[in-house]
């Protein structure tokens, strides 16, 4: 342990109350009265589309940005009054793998270890240990610019863990990763939580939140629009989405009135496609087929799939997760930054 865990850790590792953050001299509200409590030793999820305020929340909790209003404490320390103390108990892995490309993997970890004020000898052993644990041992002496996307993410996460922080902030840890790298990272995060680490992560993927998080909040335009366990959210939503495709919009329109009784939740129809959120997929599919059958409607496709973030949004807000917000691209990120500095 790099830092003593004798800190008076309460029931909640992170407590944020009525957090407001505005940019552009109040012209843009990135966070609007957000309150959340992260229980110690759990993985807590912030789910939302780009531009919903997830990154701003992480930056406030990790003392990178200050809140416009509201109070937040991390590990029992106020983020505004005692930011130095907060920084001693947290690890942060930001949205874009923040590694120095011109240093080797080992040098990256050593730098962060030294800046965490660990002893030099300890920094070396800890860096080697992390490279080993994260499957980077063979690449420790290679420049980070030669790393793949998945390797960079692992190195980034390792850098956040050099000082063995009891609280970890992960901002979209798997965005842009291939399925295998994503699985690897999930396994690592689960291992950390088993070891007692509290994790607050943001994600755009319902699947990820479902797999990792016990509790989560859903953010939209800086406001919390839903919170609870993953199971609670899913039960509000339905477990499965039934997708029906038709030969024409005319057929789809006629079918809509016939199948709308299949689900208790409102059907979503767009063009030639109808989507229904249901609890029992196969039974609902059979029911839907019976209802359309014999009416001359041409069904061209039928599909059952897991609900996506879009479905959650549609069900919670009546609108889709907005694409017009901020896409996870570098130029957009700069826009957020510029906004953050005004």
């Amino acid at each position, binding site marked *: 342990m790099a*830092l*003593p865990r*004798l*800190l*008076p850790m309460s029931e909640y590792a992170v407590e944020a109350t009525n957090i407001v953050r505005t940019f552009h001299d109040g012209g843009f509200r990135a966070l609007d009265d957000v309150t959340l409590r992260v229980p110690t030793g759990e993985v807590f999820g912030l789910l939302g589309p780009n531009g919903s305020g997830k990154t701003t929340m992480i*930056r406030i909790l*990790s*003392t*990178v*940005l200050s809140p416009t209003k509201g109070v937040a404490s991390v590990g029992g320390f106020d983020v505004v009054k005692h930011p*130095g*103390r907060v*920084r*001693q108990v*947290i690890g*942060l892995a*930001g*949205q*874009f*793998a*923040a*590694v*120095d*490309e*011109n*240093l080797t993997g080992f*040098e990256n970890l050593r*730098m*962060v270890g*030294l*800046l*965490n*004020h660990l002893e030099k000898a300890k920094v070396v052993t800890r860096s080697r240990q992390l490279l080993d644990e994260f499957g980077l041992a063979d690449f420790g002496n290679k*420049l980070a610019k030669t790393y793949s996307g998945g390797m960079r993410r692992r190195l980034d996460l390792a*850098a956040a863990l050099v000082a063995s922080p009891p609280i970890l*902030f992960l901002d979209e840890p798997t965005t842009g990763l291939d399925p295998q790298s994503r699985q690897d990272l999930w396994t690592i995060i689960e291992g950390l939580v088993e070891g007692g680490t509290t994790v607050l992560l943001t994600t755009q993927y319902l699947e990820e939140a479902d797999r990792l998080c016990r509790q989560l909040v859903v953010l939209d335009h800086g406001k919390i629009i839903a919170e609870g366990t993953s199971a609670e959210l899913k039960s509000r939503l339905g477990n499965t989405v039934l997708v029906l495709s038709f030969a024409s919009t005319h057929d789809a329109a006629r079918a809509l009135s016939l199948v709308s009784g299949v689900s208790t939740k409102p059907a979503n129809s767009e063009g030639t496609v109808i989507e229904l959120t249901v609890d029992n997929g196969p039974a609902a599919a059979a029911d839907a087929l019976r209802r359309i059958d014999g009416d001359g409607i041409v069904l061209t496709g039928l599909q059952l799939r897991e609900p996506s973030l879009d479905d959650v949004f549609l069900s919670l807000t009546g609108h889709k997760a907005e694409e017009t917000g901020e896409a996870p691209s*570098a130029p957009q990120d*700069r826009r957020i*930054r*510029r906004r*953050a*500095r005004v």
Partner: protein
Amino acid sequence: MTTTASPLDTEASRHTSIRWAIRDVLTLARRNLMALFRIPTALVFAMIQPVMFVLLFRYVFGGAIPVPGGQYVNFLIPGILVQTTIFGAIGTAIGLAEDLQRGLIERFKALPMARMAVLGGRTIADMARNVMVLLIITAVGFAVGFRPHGGFLPYVEACLVMLTFAYCLSWGFAFVGLAAPNSETAQAMTFPLIFPLTFASNIFVPVSSMPWWLRGFANNQPVSQTAQAVRGLMLGTAHGQSAWVSLLWAMGLVAVLAPLAVNRFRRAA
């Protein structure tokens, strides 16, 4: 839990002491210098450009530029040295813009390190690079006929004057780097600042040939004062109060620019 108070306090002071701040600065300065040597092309370009200037002005333009005392090469090399150290500040802006773009500034800000170490480490690394450049240009200068008669100690003094001035000025470029949306823009933004300071000056030509309105600026602006001080010290001729004027400018600049850069750093993420 009254017993937790004291270990926590020592823990906090352990992280904020001057000794740790210095170590943080050195850690980051070392990191920046390592990166410099890892990109050999950048280093070579940093060295080649001033050498090209030396050759260009020594052999192409130099013959047509009359200077008091007659020997243009002795006029030129101190000027080129000043120009090169000031151009080094472009690297300060680009480096910080890159760190910001790559999320490294965000990472640093969440670490229990000294807040000023990011800017301190960057500017000090860039000063170390300037020392290397000074040595190389001096050697190149000697090779093309530069003969400073001021003596060794005044030569060192001259180097300290220009390094101090360039270091203080680099805080302004730190601000530019943190304000730019990306490193390309940062580089572009430095140009309109660097250009008038280095070319509307006495670095390459005596200001006496300039029109009166430009002469006023060129004579009194800080880079000219620095170049005049460096020239006087290196050549053993009179430099009047230029060295003091240059140092005063340096102090004035850093007093204004450092708070600007630090404030920008606080808001950056």
